[in-house]
């Protein structure tokens, strides 16, 4: 699927938001992303799954420099240029954003209603000072790639449906030929019948132009469909990481198991009481903790979980888990593929 060239290397990335509760009181921090490390290979799709508040969108936005990172490093290396986002100068940052683009979730609020499609899509080129003739040619190329027509160019966002708007958003991200595209819940706001169109479009574009995707979503079915490797995030940290088959068929972290179990399944009709429902809710991110961040909700916890610092460890074939009890417990995955020829 992908060659073994790392295009984006993220090391111990942290993004804290300060929270001032009162004038004299101590500043507290929301640890939205709390030490995330991974590498993205060229041409692969890495899925980041997690529930709301787990820091997946903060991570995505930090990676395109929309947030200033608190600590850690992001290294971009496409063979021609190496950029370290943390100590990059303005020009390097500009080159970085040219290579790493983002597609947003909400196709309604992410487009400026006052400018037409041409201006929206051409804006990145104008910022990066492309000559005028090239801009027009590129816009009409990219608009065809995403399945829109030239006649759409003079219209304004309000005259498009959700799916078409998302196509415009995709065109805007593609126009400066990025290498890495971060899809932040890119299909979540769309109607189910339109979702598949956009998923297929993203896959086609990847096959043709070898983009690397970081696909952020809360929807396990979508992630399973589109990704090669999956990172499961919980409360600001990656708790499990591995290939799609490994993570889904033999999860090594109780949270992944619960997440897979909770996904509504068509074949599950009227099967009551079979689920292992995860009780409780995600923890308060402003509280500093030593041990496992899922301690309160975990069905497999022992006292030691609360005291042992969380650490991702390899359980074989690059499958990482943050659960310290992983060798002692037996977790259930999907095991669908096994049944099929």
């Amino acid at each position, binding site marked *: 699927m992908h060659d073994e060239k790392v295009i984006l290397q993220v090391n111990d990335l942290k993004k804290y938001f300060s929270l001032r509760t009162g004038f004299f009181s101590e500043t507290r921090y929301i640890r939205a992303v709390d030490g995330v490390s991974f590498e993205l290979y060229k041409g692969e799709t890495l899925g980041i799954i997690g*529930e*709301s508040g787990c820091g997946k969108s903060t991570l995505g936005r930090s990676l395109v420099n929309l947030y200033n990172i608190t600590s850690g490093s992001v290294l971009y290396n496409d063979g021609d240029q190496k950029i370290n986002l943390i100590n990059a100068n303005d020009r390097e940052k500009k080159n970085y954003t040219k290579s790493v683009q983002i597609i947003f979730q909400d196709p309604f609020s992410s487009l400026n209603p006052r400018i037409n499609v041409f201006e929206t899509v051409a804006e990145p080129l104008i910022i990066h000072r492309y000559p005028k003739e090239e801009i027009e040619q590129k816009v009409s190329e990219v608009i065809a790639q995403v399945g829109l027509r030239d006649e759409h160019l003079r219209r304004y966002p309000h005259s498009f*449906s*959700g*799916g*078409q708007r998302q196509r415009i958003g995709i065109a805007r991200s593609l126009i400066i030929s990025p290498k890495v595209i971060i899809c932040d819940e890119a299909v979540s706001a769309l*109607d*189910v*019948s*339109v*979702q*598949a*169109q956009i*998923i*297929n479009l993203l896959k086609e574009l990847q096959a043709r132009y070898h983009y690397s995707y970081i696909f952020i979503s*809360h*929807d*396990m*079915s*979508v992630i*399973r*469909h589109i990704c090669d490797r999956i990172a499961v995030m919980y409360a600001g940290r990656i708790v499990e990481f591995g290939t799609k088959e490994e993570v889904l068929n033999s999860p090594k972290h109780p949270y992944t198991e*619960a*997440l*897979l*179990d*909770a*996904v*509504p*399944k*068509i*074949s*599950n*009709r*009227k*099967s*009551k*009481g079979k*689920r292992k*429902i*995860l*009780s409780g*809710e995600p923890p308060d991110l402003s509280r500093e903790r030593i041990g496992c961040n899922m301690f309160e909700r975990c069905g497999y916890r022992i006292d030691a979980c609360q005291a042992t610092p969380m650490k991702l460890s390899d359980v074989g074939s690059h499958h990482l888990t943050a659960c310290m009890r992983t060798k002692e417990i037996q977790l259930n995955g*999907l095991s*669908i*593929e096994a049944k*099929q020829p």
Partner: protein
Amino acid sequence: MQRILEVKDLSINFYLREGVVHALTDVNFEVFENETLGVIGESGSGKSVTVQSILGILSQPPAKIVSGSIRFEPESRNLELNLLPTYGDTYRNVRWNDISMIFQEPMSSFSPLHSIGDQISEALTLHRPELSETDVLSVCLGLLEKVGIPSPAMFFKRYPHEFSGGMRQRAMIAMALVCNPKILIADEPTTALDVTIEAQILELLESIKSEFNMSMIYISHDLAVIGEISDRILVMYLGRVVESGVADEVIDNPLHPYTRALLKSIPKIDQPIESLDPIEGSIPSPFEVHTGCPFYSRCTERLGEICLRQKPAHKTYNNGHKVSCHLHA
């Protein structure tokens, strides 16, 4: 099984400055006692308008019930809801006492200015004036406990913003149950929630439904959720019921091309990965008038002229599976 609600030939139009929207066209369905009816449809399919018309909370104008009837307990009381004035004691008694509703957005459906307890008990004090204050309190606390809220007494005095989405949705369910309704309408109650919380709420709804002997109308755009929770399924597209039947039938043996296409277009977690077959095009504008089948422009199995020009009739098979498509004439 007895029918508890019957909707017959219901058509609702919205008269707007931009034109007329045919929000519902000849909608027919019934709800039986103790069953869960799942209503599935995309945006603009009219699923919310349907339940709002049952509760009499449509704003009229711009909406207007053009034809049809909504009858509650057609065998015994035979209350024609569409003829009742939406303001007034009779309808007010139907809401909460007979039919109540849980909304999608747990944040915006509570008033931020009143404590959760005040809002839950308000319905009870209004609808059961004979109850004393202590009775009201004990009923409410009991319900809060039943919907899985830890330490209900403390919860009672707090305000909506102090709780997470899942907790608020639980409180909303408790509020809908205070008067022991016969039908609970759930309009996308888990759409705004995370999957693990969604699983909790689905299980809770399932258990209170059997405990309170209620019927439930569950609305969602998520076929998997609908498949899990429903006894029978109603598939809506552009204000029409295109297919209905027992859940197993509709999902394993879908008859309408739209249902078939929908099933093929969603990524499923419990089936082998294959490429998705999207439904081409997008949902037509609500102002468009369709003389024939509303799905015509996107249908891959269309027959031609007849689908474009002529409204498909409803065909009922022996097992109660209904479909409205020219393929099944």
